[in-house]
């Protein structure tokens, strides 16, 4: 499912095509609960010079001129009673595309995972199926190697991931 965004921003162009790193725009994803959505100024680091007259980008220019943020519609949304934190997942080797799907091929962003409690818990019980080396966390092209089970177990030990408490209710409902 995609949303009607004020600007038809395409990860396919910016990530798949230009190869931009997620952190160029989602700056706080390593440090905070929130990945963060880019302020208008971030778009303008390039679009002050590129596609400066494009109709599609008119809302971006208006946002800069009026000093009001672009009102992006949220795509992924957990209920308010669930606690989620990006930084811990990124630090322990859970990659963006494991939860957000092949974002580098999305013309419009869509929700890729069900975000149900069952889905969270499946991974919290056996994270070895998903863990990657830290330098592959932001790589939208990564896919699990043949020996993922063994690699995952090795990374779990290396990153000190312990599953005994990860399914406690209080981890996600605080």
């Amino acid at each position, binding site marked *: 499912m995609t949303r009607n965004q004020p600007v038809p921003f395409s990860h396919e162009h910016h990530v798949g095509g*230009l*190869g*931009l*790193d997620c*952190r*160029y725009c989602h*700056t706080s994803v390593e440090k905070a*609960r*929130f990945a963060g*959505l880019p*302020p208008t*100024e*971030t778009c*303008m*680091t*390039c679009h*002050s*010079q*590129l596609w400066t007259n494009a109709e599609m980008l008119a809302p971006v220019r208006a946002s800069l001129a009026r*000093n*009001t*943020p672009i*009102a*992006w519609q*949220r795509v992924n949304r957990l*209920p*308010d*009673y669930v606690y989620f934190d990006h930084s811990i997942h990124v630090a322990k080797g859970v990659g963006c595309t494991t939860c957000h799907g092949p974002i580098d091929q999305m013309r419009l962003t869509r929700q890729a995972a069900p975000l149900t409690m069952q889905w969270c818990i499946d991974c919290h019980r056996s994270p070895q199926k998903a863990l990657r080396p830290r330098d592959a966390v932001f790589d939208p092209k990564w896919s699990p190697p043949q020996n993922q089970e063994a690699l995952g177990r090795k990374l779990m030990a290396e990153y000190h991931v312990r599953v005994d408490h990860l399914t406690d209710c209080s981890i996600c409902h605080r």
Partner: protein
Amino acid sequence: MIERLAIPICAALLLSACDDVSMTQQNRYRTFTRAALFDNGTEAQPLPDGVVAQGDLRRQSRSVQRPQVNAELLKRGRERYDIYCSPCHGLSGSGDGVVVQRGFPAPPSYHGSRLRAASAQHFFDVITNGHGVMFSYAARVDPSDRWGIVAYIRALQESQRANVADTPELRTRLP
């Protein structure tokens, strides 16, 4: 009479305040949500003038105190350079990054004589304040990472004039 009515009335008022008993949507602002209450329409509010945020003084002191250059700083600098600078300056610093290939004005190569001679402080200041058509990266790259990037750019500059004579063992491996 009034006392006897007060309790049910209060209860009714309280209940009607929360129209969603499932607690899925709680009555509070979340990051980036819209908020008609504020002039700019969002809960994200700019800091009032003169506010000093926690850690600001520490961050500021890192602008002045340069970290020691070691392998760890270079590794971090390289990672941050690849994220924030390489789209325009290119992975090798020649000014031919992918965004430039799509029409962005080309930045000068780091390997020209002027930028080779430029001080580390100059590079730091360009990241902090921007330069010409290049915007500031201060909001996205904190001071210690700026020094990391500067150290990595220095390493890139050295790598471009690496002289085979300086590393004799290399010669045997070159065709």
